[in-house]
């Protein structure tokens, strides 16, 4: 479980996140949604310690996130970003195994874990010997997910993981990811600006605007009783194009 206590962040006077207290409960998928610059990515980056809060505390489990324990606590967090963040000089397999190797895990266990993860994300093992530039966008995101899951962390943070993919690949991966989340039983926080995607993944959806959480609840609660006009507008702006549903 991850908990934020009065956490805020401003960049040069611009408020990225107003003082916010929120908890992400274990084994549930929470989706952070909102327009560009609403603070949803900042919230995620605060949780993995890439951004230091101006005020407040981030709790990972029962430990306060600080400079002394951030490296160790990150081992318990998988982090995936939009274009994968794979290291171009390492093959997919080496990208995935990088941290485990550094921590001195036995090679046999690393190999077994990689095979298990490749099956979970439906990636042919042969592709793992390729360099990132030799993989398609969807394959890169699968590798990135494998890297994040390598040490079997209790927490998985995904910052627009499907944002750079074409619609078909995106659709496929949405289906697969949902299955993966369901089997893994992890605390998942996923950032997106797409309400359909949010509805697809989220046990709980949080909508942010201008650094504040505007509404938090299930998708049907969002539809039934939007907390303010902005929420209604946001949902309407993202209506699907499938005839009959519009």
């Amino acid at each position, binding site marked *: 479980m991850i908990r934020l206590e009065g956490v805020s962040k401003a960049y040069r006077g611009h408020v990225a996140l107003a003082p916010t207290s929120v908890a992400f409960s274990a084994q549930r998928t929470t989706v952070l949604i909102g327009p560009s610059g609403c603070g949803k990515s900042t919230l995620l980056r605060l949780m*993995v*310690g*890439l951004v230091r809060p101006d005020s407040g505390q981030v709790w990972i489990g029962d430990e306060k996130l600080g400079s002394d324990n*951030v*490296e*160790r*606590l*990150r*081992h318990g*967090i998988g*982090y995936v*970003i*939009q*274009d994968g*963040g*794979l*290291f*171009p*000089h*390492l*093959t997919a397999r080496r990208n995935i195994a*990088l*941290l485990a190797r*550094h921590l001195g895990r036995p090679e046999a266990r690393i190999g077994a874990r990689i095979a298990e993860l490749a099956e979970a994300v439906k990636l042919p093992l042969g592709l793992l010997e390729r*360099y*990132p*530039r030799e993989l398609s966008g969807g394959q890169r995101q699968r590798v990135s997910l494998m*890297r994040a899951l390598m040490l079997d962390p209790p927490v998985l943070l995904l910052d627009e993981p499907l944002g750079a993919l074409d619609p078909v690949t995106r659709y496929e991966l949405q289906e697969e990811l949902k299955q993966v989340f369901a089997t893994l039983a992890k605390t998942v926080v996923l950032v997106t600006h797409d309400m359909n995607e949010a509805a697809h993944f989220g046990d709980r959806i949080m909508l942010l605007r201008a650094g504040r959480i505007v509404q938090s609840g299930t998708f049907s609660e969002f539809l039934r009783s939007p907390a303010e006009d902005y929420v209604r507008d946001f949902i309407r702006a993202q209506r699907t194009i499938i005839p009959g549903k519009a």
Partner: protein
Amino acid sequence: MRSTLALLLLLLSGLCGAQDTVKVGSKRFTESYILGEIIAASVRSVGEVDAIHRQGLGNTAIVFSALRSGVIDVYPEYAGTIAMELLKKSATSSLEEINRELAPLGLGAAVRLGFSNSYALAMREDHAAKLQIVTVSDLRRTPSLKFGLSQEFLNRKDGWNGMARAYGLTATPQGLDHGLAYEAIATSQADVIDVYSTDAKLAKHRLRVLTDDLGYFPRYDAVLLYRLDLPQRFPKAWAAMSRLEGRISAEQMIALNARAELAGVPFASIAETFLGDGKEHALPVPHAGRQFLDSLVGGDFLRLTGEHLLLVFASLALSIVFGVPLGIWAGRSPGAAGWILGSVGMLQTIPSLALLAFLITWMGTIGTAPAIVALFLYALLPIVRSTASGLADIPLPLRESGLALGLPGGARLRMIELPLAARSILAGIKTSAIINVGTATIAAFVGAGGYGERIVAGLAVNDNAVLLAGAVPAALMAVGLQLGFDLLDRWLIPAGLRHDEGIEH
């Protein structure tokens, strides 16, 4: 870091130690080479002690630093230069005045060799004889003579203007490039030119040097500048050197210079002939127009190549060892980057001869060690800068991915950041190596050898074949290094980064 450097310097300077010899220095022009050989040969002739000649040591500042630090014991110098350039006094200071100033430095000037090398005016011998002109004052009788004077002489404080006033000369001189002056007077386009009074070409073109009868020009008497402990350490050798007093007239010096520059006789054999029975000895005497190819593959080619490679790679290794960590520091901390790049950049602006002169004094040695240190300092900038920029140019998402994995700083540097910056770092090392090949030619100024030895010798005796025999292999070495590094790129740049559109294009 400082102590590592000091230790290294100590090791390097150990290579240059030679205790029981008289070490003679010379500057890098023909006359100084010849006098250095004569001094060394006269020391050897008494059999008290061996002598080595560290020839062609750059400029006055470098050879003087070498003398003060005890790397050499003695070298030929001109009294006027000692007074004006080294002691900052009037060029007309007497030898006694000069010695009063030199004594606190543990140095002395003695043994007037017998000639002065100063500015002088010269005319064609036959022309001067016809007009019965012997002294500068005689020029007043023939105001129609055409003066072709070098720009330097026209513009110096103690040049033409002062001279014309002192002698009451009314001619309007023409500016003439010094390199063309001898041709101009030979073809009668000029009647009077300015010369150095012991110039080899005076003999070749049969010119008469006019006597400075009013004593207008300061005298640049050739003397020995030496360490005061030399006469005590080697009294017999010193006595032999002292016997050179008054032995070399201006005419003789002109002839000796001509034998080196015009006849291509090696300095050592000129010196032996001068001190010995006057007969040419058995050394093969190359003629003036030596062929470039003969010079190129001459007997010292392998030695010079080895020395040049040592200079380039030893200094390159040092600049990698110090430059990459400095670059990492600069790349990681924007606060430090300013002053690190600033100070490394400032090193580039120090003129090489000034840097070498300083290093010789500081390290107390000449030769390979100060040359390597100078090259090391010059090679730092490209390596530091390319390392810093290579690290700074790593895209933020990649840097954050390393952080988010929970890898500690050292592991991120080793496994992620340095490999990603490898291409930039290698480019910097390549630049430094290639620049070093060229810069290493200055090492010859401090007796460190390499191809520069030929360039310096070629410049000194105006022999383009010798000069090219040094410059061409240096250029080829640079090209070879370039190709070598291109191959190295394939080994060292991670496969995933090669032909990567996103990284450098």
